[in-house]
């Protein structure tokens, strides 16, 4: 740094915002970094979605049509990884970056430079992973991309993993570092940067759910890093963590992985709980029912998420006491989750409801997430899980909670806060088209998966028995329809970014509450340089 630049910094000359590429590359502004996260996650959503289209094209009809089974496995693997780590997680981090400082009256995130770093690692992490896929699709000799499922069970990923597994390991390490830094930033911001008077129990629920999510991230992402490190040393440095021949145990991998993996699913859904807890009161024109119980329910879900991991592996041959423990603990999670659903419904009860776009998405979230939760409760029952395990029933379950759950709530958040981000109202016509097409196609896509799953269609195969043909045809149609519907959102977002549309007032939603609506739309580059007064 030159002295001139240092002096420049000392003067706190905030009045001219950096422009061009530098604005984005060197940004330490929470709003710009939030925007980067959101665009990145949407790009990854389209990339992962394209892979899902390849999967559904192959499964449109029985028999082999477009890709060979080897490439099909790479598609299911990378689709899962991209969607989990590239679409859902960065989208919620983007929302956190944009909204948490605005919601708690802070001028920025607590650690702005780390914030820049945690974003800019991500494109490289996914660049590495997608490079492996491109090599597989177009490279010389078509070396395989990771093909062992997003759960990368040993020994598929250790002894039998393709050479690109090492790219995958590096990529996961980078994603993990990014997530941990993002999470640390959220915790430090929420603990130290709140405006005077903003006590913990006055914070908007989105901030609460993100604070708890951040703690989960700091607790389990290092465990994921540990798992991939063990894989790496097993593959290249002669250790035998997961290799039976050397005294290791492949089942250990599943324990380590799911110790990370189960809290991970709550990492993806807790911010969604915060989003709908902001939106439903705004359009029901009533305060959120049971605020304190929502906070405690979120915390209980987070704590319980550490003691349910083995419900993903009931079929490995656990002792009876073990399966019973994990079964009851899993069922116990439905209690705090039920409290939340009850509170959302109670908030709407006798409210002055209007159904603007964010509210439509939020209500769809409540209903469809509950469907996904219900099938989760079925999966929790050990004896019946033996039937459902590794079938399309599981695929239906986690797509209900992640697509019609997490992603629907992220769309709800986008429509709710786009006026604040861009200064213009998102197009109503396009938004309605996006919502109704997504709603109907997502159900056509995922609901019949329950039926084929119960009938015994296993997941992660490029082909299926003939009796599943009709259902799979309609599932694929739903898939293409859902995929195309997301292009509508791309248009909505680009229109907002280009400021095309009705100008948005500071508070575009009549019943909305919160500090974010006290700043103009679009939110200025710097907000709350002097802390706001909290009533």
């Amino acid at each position, binding site marked *: 740094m030159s002295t001139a630049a240092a002096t420049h910094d000392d003067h706190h000359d905030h009045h001219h915002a950096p422009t061009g590429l530098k604005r984005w590359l060197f940004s330490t502004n929470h709003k710009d970094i939030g925007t980067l996260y959101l665009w990145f996650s949407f790009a990854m959503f389209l990339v992962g979605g394209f892979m899902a289209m390849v999967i559904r094209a192959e499964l449109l009809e029985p028999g082999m049509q477009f890709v060979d089974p080897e490439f099909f496995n790479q598609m299911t693997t990378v689709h899962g990884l991209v969607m989990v780590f590239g679409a859902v997680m960065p989208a919620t981090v983007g929302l956190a970056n944009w909204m948490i400082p605005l919601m708690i009256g802070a001028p920025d995130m*607590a*650690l702005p430079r780390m914030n820049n770093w945690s974003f800019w690692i991500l494109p490289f992490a996914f660049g590495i992973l997608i490079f492996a896929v491109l090599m597989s699709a177009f490279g010389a000799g078509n070396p395989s991309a990771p093909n062992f499922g997003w759960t990368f069970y040993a020994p598929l990923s250790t*002894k039998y993993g393709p050479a690109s597994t090492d790219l995958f390991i590096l990529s996961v390490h980078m994603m993990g570092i990014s997530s*941990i830094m993002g999470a*640390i930033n959220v*915790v*430090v911001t929420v*603990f*130290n*940067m709140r405006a005077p008077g903003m006590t913990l129990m006055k914070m908007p629920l989105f901030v609460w759910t993100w604070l708890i999510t951040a703690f989960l991230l*700091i*607790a*389990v*992402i*290092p*465990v994921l*890093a*540990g*798992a991939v*490190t*063990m894989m790496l040393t097993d593959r290249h440095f*002669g250790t035998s*963590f997961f290799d*039976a*021949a*050397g*005294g290791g*145990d492949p*089942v*250990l991998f599943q*324990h*380590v992985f799911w*110790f990370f993996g189960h809290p991970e699913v709550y990492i993806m859904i807790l911010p969604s709980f915060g989003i709908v807890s902001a939106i439903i009161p705004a359009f029901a024109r009533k305060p959120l029912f049971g605020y304190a119980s929502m906070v405690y329910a979120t915390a209980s879900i987070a704590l319980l998420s550490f003691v349910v991991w083995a419900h993903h592996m009931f079929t*490995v*041959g*656990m*002792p*009876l006491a*073990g399966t019973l423990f994990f079964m009851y603990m899993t069922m116990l999670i439905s209690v705090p989750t039920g409290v939340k659903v009850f509170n959302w419904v109670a908030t709407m009860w006798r409210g002055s409801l209007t159904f603007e776009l964010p509210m439509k998405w939020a209500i769809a979230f409540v209903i469809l997430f509950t469907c996904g939760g219900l099938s989760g409760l079925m999966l929790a029952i050990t004896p019946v899980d033996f039937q459902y395990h590794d079938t399309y029933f599981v695929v239906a379950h986690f797509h209900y909670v992640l697509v019609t759950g997490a992603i629907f709530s992220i769309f709800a958040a986008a429509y709710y806060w786009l006026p604040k981000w861009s200064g213009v109202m998102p197009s109503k016509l396009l938004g309605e088209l996006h919502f109704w097409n997504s709603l109907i196609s997502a159900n056509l896509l995922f609901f019949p998966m329950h039926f084929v799953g119960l009938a015994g269609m296993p997941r992660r195969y490029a082909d299926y028995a003939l009796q599943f043909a009709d259902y799979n045809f309609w599932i694929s149609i739903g898939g293409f329809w859902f995929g195309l519907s997301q292009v509508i959102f791309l248009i909505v977002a680009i229109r907002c970014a280009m400021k095309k549309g009705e100008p948005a007032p500071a508070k575009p939603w009549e019943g909305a509450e919160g500090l974010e609506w006290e700043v103009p739309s679009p939110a200025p580059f710097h907000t709350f340089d002097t802390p706001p007064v909290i009533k």
Partner: protein
Amino acid sequence: MSDNQPLSVEERNKRTLKKLVIWAVAMFGFAFLMVPFYNVICDITGLNGKTSSTAATQAPEKVVADRTVTVEFITQRGDGISGEFTSETKRVKVHPGEITLVHFYATNPTGSDMVTQSIPSVTPGEAARYLHKTQCFCFDQQTLAAGERKDMPMIFYLDPEIPRHINQFTLSYTIFDVTERVAGKNNSVAVN
């Protein structure tokens, strides 16, 4: 800085950051701690069908003559094994506490010596802790000379306390070729 003065935001941020980083590093360590922890749990409970890797030294207290348990033996060939690996006895009915000898055979049809390691596993897993082996080829690595057919005996008894509902269980052995692994270890020792 005295304790009376409130800390600046930057100072508080740094303190929180430090705590969180320490926590993240500790959780990375915890992932590795899960490995010995898992092994101990497996040893104690027989979780996952792991049998003890050391020889039982005590003789059984008694023989329960009024009940029999069927023990089945299956064998599998792991990576690098091209020869045979079978048990002479496919199943045996034993009284708990009765000392029994069974024979396994492995052949090495290749032209070079081979170091093998056999890994046991019991299904259902809860039977594992009641299986006591006084001698087993799985306790050590077995070297098969080129062209050798090796007799590998295993002597075991069942704990007289084995629960009544376990009438039958399967003991499986998978044999692995660990020649390269052993050679690699020796080389690295030599280098050091």
